[in-house]
């Protein structure tokens, strides 16, 4: 009996021994362990943290970042980067709320138009990156400014009003669980399925690891890369729609910081910036880490601007401990 326990203990130890794990898996494991640590820290520092309404709050707050972080994972896995998601969120939140303007009959048209715009943004990014061969960083940095300009041309301040029904997207409940959390969970599961079980997912990994090799294997790498930008801006659009629903109106500053945050969660989640390695599971852990950290800082009543310092430090420290050559 004693021996058996010892064996099991050893097995558990080795499964956690990071050196025996593959690098990416190791970093995903680290992300989950960090999440555990953050939860523990939350429980210790704040008595209200573990109350059920707070946990539900954390989950709901994770949705906006979660959606866009998911899209960013696709782009980074294919070896790209998207800095334009933040401004896409701002634009789509303004557009949807502005068109809706509190009229129930306009909900569907507003959503459709917003999606169309989102797809256009993704297509423009994807076209510039995969067909014009402009580096992703430059493309999306330029696109960020273009979308910001367009948003400000549309409105310089909060705009529009959502309908009561549309508020269900952010406020609704199915049983005890908020609707957006379920919505996010379903999408996330779909994302994992796409990455692991479809030809697109497989080709995405191969393209990210080496575009040349993938191309030589007969994969349409340009199309794959193009699609990742569409997916990313669609997920940013969903995020914008969600935030508009939560705030009740659109705001040209709605998406500020989301580009940085989404990249942070992907990288902390263990996906390599060079592409081809990593996945959504690590991203999920990192999303929760970020939203719990926000929550703890709020609960502790820390000055809101500290969040930027914490985020900047987390990203820099995390990446400098990964110690791999990109």
């Amino acid at each position, binding site marked *: 009996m004693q021996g058996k326990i010892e064996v099991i203990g050893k097995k558990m130890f080795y499964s956690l021994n990071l050196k025996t794990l593959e690098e990416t898996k190791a970093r995903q494991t680290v992300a989950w362990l960090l999440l555990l640590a953050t939860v523990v820290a939350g429980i210790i520092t704040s008595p209200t943290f573990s109350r059920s309404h707070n946990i539900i709050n954390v989950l709901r707050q994770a949705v906006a970042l979660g959606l866009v972080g998911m899209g960013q994972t696709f782009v980074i896995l294919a070896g790209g980067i998207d800095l334009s998601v933040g401004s896409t969120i701002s634009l789509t939140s303004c557009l949807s709320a502005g068109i809706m303007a509190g009229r129930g009959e306009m909900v569907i048209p507003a959503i459709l138009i917003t999606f169309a715009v989102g797809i256009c943004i993704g297509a423009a990014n994807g076209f510039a990156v995969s067909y014009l061969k402009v580096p992703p960083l430059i493309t999306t940095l330029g696109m960020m400014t273009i979308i910001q300009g367009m948003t400000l041309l549309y409105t310089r301040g909060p705009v529009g009003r959502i309908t009561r029904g549309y508020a269900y997207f952010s406020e609704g409940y199915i049983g005890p669980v908020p609707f957006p959390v379920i919505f996010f969970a379903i999408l996330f599961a779909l994302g994992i399925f796409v990455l692991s*079980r*479809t030809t697109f997912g*497989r080709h995405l990994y*191969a393209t990210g*690891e080496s575009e040349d*090799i*993938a*191309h*030589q294997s007969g994969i349409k790498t340009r199309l794959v890369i193009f699609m990742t930008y569409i997916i990313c801006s669609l997920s940013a659009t969903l995020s914008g729609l969600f935030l508009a629903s939560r705030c009740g109106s659109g705001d040209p500053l709605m998406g500020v910081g989301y580009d940085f945050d989404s990249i942070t969660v992907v990288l902390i989640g263990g996906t390599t910036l060079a592409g081809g390695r990593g996945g959504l599971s690590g991203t999920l852990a990192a999303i929760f880490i970020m939203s719990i950290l926000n929550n703890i800082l709020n609960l502790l009543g820390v000055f809101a601007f500290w969040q930027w310092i914490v985020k900047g430090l987390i990203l820099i420290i995390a990446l400098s401990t990964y110690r791999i050559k990109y």
Partner: protein
Amino acid sequence: MRSNNSEIILEMRNISKSFPGVKALSDVSLECKRGEVLCLVGENGAGKSTLMKILVGVYNQDEGEIILRGKKVDISNPWDAYRSGISIIYQESNLVPHLSVGENVLLGHEPSRGFIINPTKLYKSAKTWLQRLNIDINPRIPVYKLSVAQQQMIAIVKALSLNADLVIMDEPTSSLPLHEVETLFNCIRALKNEGRAIIYISHRLEEVFQIADRVAVLRDGKRVGVLSREGADKSTLVRMMIGREVEEVYPEKVKTFTVDKEILSVENLTSSTLKNINFKLYRGEILGVAGLMGSGRTALAKVIFGVDSPLDGGDIYFDGKSVSLKDPQRAIGAGIGFVSENRGEEGLVFTLSVTKNISLPILGKISYLKFWLNKNKEKKIARTLVEELKIRTPRLNTQVSYLSGGNQQKVVLAKWLSVAPKLIIFDEPTRGLDIGAKAEIHYLIRKMAENGTGVILISSEIPELMSLSDRILVMRKGQIVGELSSEEIAEHRILSLAAGEKED
């Protein structure tokens, strides 16, 4: 049977292709029949790989047409090639390291319903393909855990899994040990009997005679001729490949070297890739280093030059003193030069001019207070070296990317001559150069040795080693497995030592 077998499956007509500054192929035609192994031979840079990359759509030809099974086809990307039943095995691995063996084998044509992959079917099918070649590898393990030879076998399985009836193999044996070469040949014979056509690229003539039905020879981007196996003999082929007699290109080694002062002594050198290396090098000696790819040749050069792999143990004595060369700066300061195997990636800065490339290692010496450049001095040094080495460049400040391969390599040599090294290491100094440029580089290497520089020459081309070296070290798996003096140097001995076979 006979009529079936002689059906022409592929015809390439008058293919031409040029790259900036280079005419890679001019007016090359080629045809290949069902159930035939067509060997494509030629020196490095003769255009073999370019021709094949055009066939599989990695490059597009400037002129000419491809006729497949009697129909003119337009292959503009690899995707088209796969659909037309052409597959290729590259010299360097084209596997995705972090995907599993099975996923790699079926990459790009996974068994799927719609978009959804069926993993059970995928691994079953991968297993079948592996078994066909008698390869006992679990299809579920990731590729990066395999050895180079295993990876090469997987690449072959991958190409076969497309069920192509035209299979191209671009030097598939360059990283295979000899006994696995036999497995590969058996597999080629099996494919041939199934009525597929194989285009086999190699510069090892022994292989060609073992496997070929016909041999096509390319030289300097032109087709020199096609021979049947019966009509081909080694000396004819070599003459066709290099355009003159072997003795002209690789003259017999003239013995000039006599043991003089010891310049380099390496004792018990051990690192992550090297095991217990011992050797000495004398002034004016050319020491050849032979071995397969990945045998530790380049790692040894880099350790001596102070790049990358840190030492686990051992000593290096240079010029009589124990030295620890932790970075190239110190190595250069001590008087060591290193012509690396890849001049595009490690040798030259393509965005800079000839002058500026030559002066890179001596910036400290041609400046006041190591800060303010003395441009006149720089120009003077560069001009002297350009004239001495007969570098053909329009102007001194022409960007090196506009020079031909041979002249680029001479710029690399000029760069190292500018530091007046006591020891210079050449890693594949003539890779990808034409015959004329090769001869010039060989001449310069000899001249350096005659002037008293110690030379370490790493090369895959045995004739080059035999014609230049005073001594040859043979490496395998990070160890020195043999040392041959100039009297003992013989091609088959080097090869068998390098491959780890028993000497016969």
